[in-house]
């Protein structure tokens, strides 16, 4: 079964090779006439004012935190889902109850964020 992952590697290498090849071929085809004006950042036709790398709304960070919490949850849910039938025949509905308790605590967190208006985009 080692071959299966070799194919994955071939796909990834091919994915890198296409942009590399296309951009290299393009280098010989495309013109190169640099002007100072061409390299100005686009801002609807007027000269850009100020810096773009500014401090950003903290809301994005909160969503990123929520994402990490629930993405870790999925990492626990997947193995559970794959072996659900197996575990159920072994220990019955206890397996479902255990996951329900786990998800319940996560949902408490979601409800807290909901109540604190973290999920609102204002």
């Amino acid at each position, binding site marked *: 079964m080692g*071959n*299966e*992952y070799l*194919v*994955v590697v*071939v*796909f*990834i290498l*091919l*994915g*890198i090779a*296409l*942009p*590399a090849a*296309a*951009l290299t071929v*393009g280098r010989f*085809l*495309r*013109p*190169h*006439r640099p002007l100072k004006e*061409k*390299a100005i*950042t*686009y*801002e*609807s036709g007027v000269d*850009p004012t100020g810096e*773009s*790398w500014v401090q*950003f709304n903290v809301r*994005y960070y909160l*969503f*990123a935190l*929520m*994402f990490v919490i*629930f*993405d870790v949850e*999925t990492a626990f*849910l*997947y193995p559970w*889902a*794959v*072996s*659900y*039938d197996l575990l*159920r025949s072994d220990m019955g*509905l206890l397996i*479902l109850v255990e996951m*329900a308790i786990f*998800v319940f605590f996560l*949902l408490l967190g*979601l409800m807290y*964020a*909901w109540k604190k208006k973290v*999920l*609102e*985009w*204002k």
Partner: protein
Amino acid sequence: MDWYIFVYPVILLAIVLVFVMYAIYFERKVIGWIQLRKGPTETGPKGLFQSAADVFKLLIKEDIIPSKADRPLFKLAPILAYVPAFSVLAVIPFTDAPYLKFSNVAVGLMYYLALSSITVMGVLLGGWASNNKYSLLGGMRAGAQMISYEIPLVLSVVGVVMSAGSLNLTEIVETQIAGAWNVFPQFLGFVVFIIAAIAELNRTPFDLPEAESELVAGYHTEYTGFRFAFFMLAEYTYVFAMASLITILFFGGWDAPFGLTFIPPLVWFILKFCCFVFLLFWLRATFPRLRGDQLMEFAWKGLLPLAIINIFVSALLKEVPFLSQYF
């Protein structure tokens, strides 16, 4: 070591590139017809060479990198967006024939979901490295949107995984051939999945990251020529991948409905696949863009609870005597 494992991916790459060219042509035609226009007509017979001409045009465009941009990251971003888009295709089984299965890894679905979320980094990086206000806004929006919708996307397929007892996409299809297509028992999961999938693809009505009426072009505003082309290529390669994945997870893959087995499995796969590609174009022509605040609230307050309910309902229905065979 078999030689063909190096050749088949190249053939698939060629097929994907042709698909992308004609998907764009078809999209422009379909949207044209829906809006009572004709779409592209000039380049070649019925405008069939329009996309090829566009690709060539992009190839000979000057490559401009803004002087204020972060050059290495600016160059890296489109590649980082594109590589996972193509790599996810490695695990997609197109039929039961062994030569149309590239990599039959046991964790196929996990691989797809894990790799496809790398693209968001390319988009975020592109938006940030451009040092342009529109790009930064678009990139940040794309990042927030894609991570928010990834959670319901991943959770909505847990029901499918439970019924198959496997993450291998071939086994998921075989379970459906033996039982019923997942779209029926997992209908709630399917609805959540398709909405989250469209949001992950950044397509209308979820195309806020590149909302042209407010953000010029969003995260790829500063990109020209083939660097821009790779962002577009990534988007349409994901259309290919996502239409395939929906076919596999919810519509029985290559399974022939109504016992119409005289039609080959690959043809069934392509038919179902085409329906989803068309659905995406249709939605684009008919839906207005969502508002930013509604978009984020919908993911967390609407889709996420629904996806979790779907998991537990599927688990409980396993206990119902007659229904349990479908869950």
